[in-house]
């Protein structure tokens, strides 16, 4: 059963936005180098279509791998912090400090540390920028578990691990997916940051770079739109996973 309204409304919103954009550029008489219009983007996309697919794929898989590592690491870190008060006190300031470092400044550092390891560098950055919200949400989810939930199982002699698997983990899933939605966009930013800052000829970030070098403004804008489209795709992939694993948290009517 497909709810057409649910699909048509957002599509209509995109069309309206594109029309307004086109109209604005036309009314202001802006040249391409100031602001390309949507009608210029399509030809730019068609001309370099094969590059879009190739680079888009590179950006996509490196983001997803980086995010995957962030999910595993962030969840483990969140578990450690959520289940042990001491570890929470010890790790929180470190984590906040690490997160506060602008990641653009880290790019040259890791580029030097792992010279030529472009895929690795990119995945590392996607991971570093995105694990924080996951760790924090899992930690908060676990540490705020009401004691009664624990007691019903502990009083039956259940181990800490059983309580974790049967109650704490599933109960944390809604918060986890909330964080994952933030993390997926962050991972995406991380990937592109590396692709744009370190010249290694891969990913949509690189396509953006070469468009800039060649003053191909419609292509630059087309890349931005492609990035936005990829971002939306990834986001809704997470939403689909959320429906499957934490659909119970969605009350009917919302």
């Amino acid at each position: 059963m497909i709810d057409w309204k649910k699909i048509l409304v957002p599509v209509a919103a995109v069309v309206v936005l594109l029309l307004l954009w086109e109209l604005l550029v036309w009314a202001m008489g802006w040249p391409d180098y100031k602001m390309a219009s949507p009608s210029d983007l399509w030809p730019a996309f068609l001309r370099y279509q094969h590059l879009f697919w190739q680079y888009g794929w590179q950006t996509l898989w490196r983001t997803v791998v980086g995010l995957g590592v962030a999910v595993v690491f962030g969840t483990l870190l969140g578990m450690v912090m959520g289940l042990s008060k001491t570890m929470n006190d010890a790790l929180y300031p470190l984590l906040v400090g690490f997160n506060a470092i602008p990641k653009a400044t880290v790019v040259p550092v890791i580029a030097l540390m792992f010279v030529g390891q472009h895929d690795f560098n990119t995945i590392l950055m996607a991971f570093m920028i995105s694990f924080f919200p996951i760790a924090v949400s899992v930690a908060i989810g676990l540490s705020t578990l009401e004691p009664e939930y624990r007691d019903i199982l502990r009083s039956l002699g259940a181990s800490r691990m059983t309580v974790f698997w049967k109650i704490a983990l599933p109960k944390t899933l809604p918060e986890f997916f909330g964080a994952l939605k933030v993390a997926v966009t962050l991972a995406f930013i991380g990937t592109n940051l590396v692709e744009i800052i370190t010249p290694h000829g891969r990913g949509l970030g690189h396509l953006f770079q070469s468009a800039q070098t060649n003053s191909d403004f419609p292509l630059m804008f087309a890349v931005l739109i492609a990035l936005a489209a990829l971002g939306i795709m990834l986001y809704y992939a997470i939403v689909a996973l959320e429906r499957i694993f934490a659909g119970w948290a969605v009350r009917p009517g919302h």
Partner: protein
Amino acid sequence: MDNLIDIKGVTHAYKTKAGPFPVLRDLNISIPQHSFCAVVGPSGCGKSTLTRLIAGLMFPDQGEVWLHGELVKSPRKTVGMAFQNPVLLEWRTILQNVILPLEIVAPMMPKAQKEARARELLAMVGLEGFEGKRPSELSGGMRQRASLCRALVHKPDIIILDEPFGALDAFTREDLWQTMHQLRANEPFTALLITHDLRESVYLGDQVVVLSGRPATTQYVMSVDIPGPRPLEMLYEPDTVERLAVLRREIQIAQGRAVA
């Protein structure tokens, strides 16, 4: 007499930065098998501590908790618990929620058998037809009924009820009181009920224990020797009114507002 639970001279204090914080002092409670013990007392007098001691989730500084002739040294599989908050798991159906203790206590039991047992209890409390619903689809009273089923599903020696009816409206609460009597008639169990409601304590309890203010000690024990299931009209009989007056006074003494 053969008691299922014997709490003997239990004294307990929490350790705080400002030094020990005594909550229980020389507390004694005995509950015979298949009898229902209601515990009342001023708020914050350590009633919830008592439930955790019986469940084996905590151990007293002094004194002993005996369950079924054994000293309680660790959590036991033979306890069922229900709280003011029904704490049902939102990602499970009502049926799956009720089954939960069986998954811990009897992991080898066939699924069909677990489900049959849960269905039987749900039918007893009037939740037939709601097995497949999520907790969020049920009213507060119905959730509490499901929570009672979960406390009973593994046929525990004792169920510990920590104000399970406290957050319900007056009519729903009376319904659930009657449900408790029906459940006891269908399959006898031993219960310890923590409550703030004197009417509830007299209607449900075979004995009512009044605890003193903190640190709590056994101040008064009233025996309510009326066989169950008791009709709701019992609440309006002169006998009951008299009992309530006595309990009321004991609570005032416990609160320090009246002198013994």
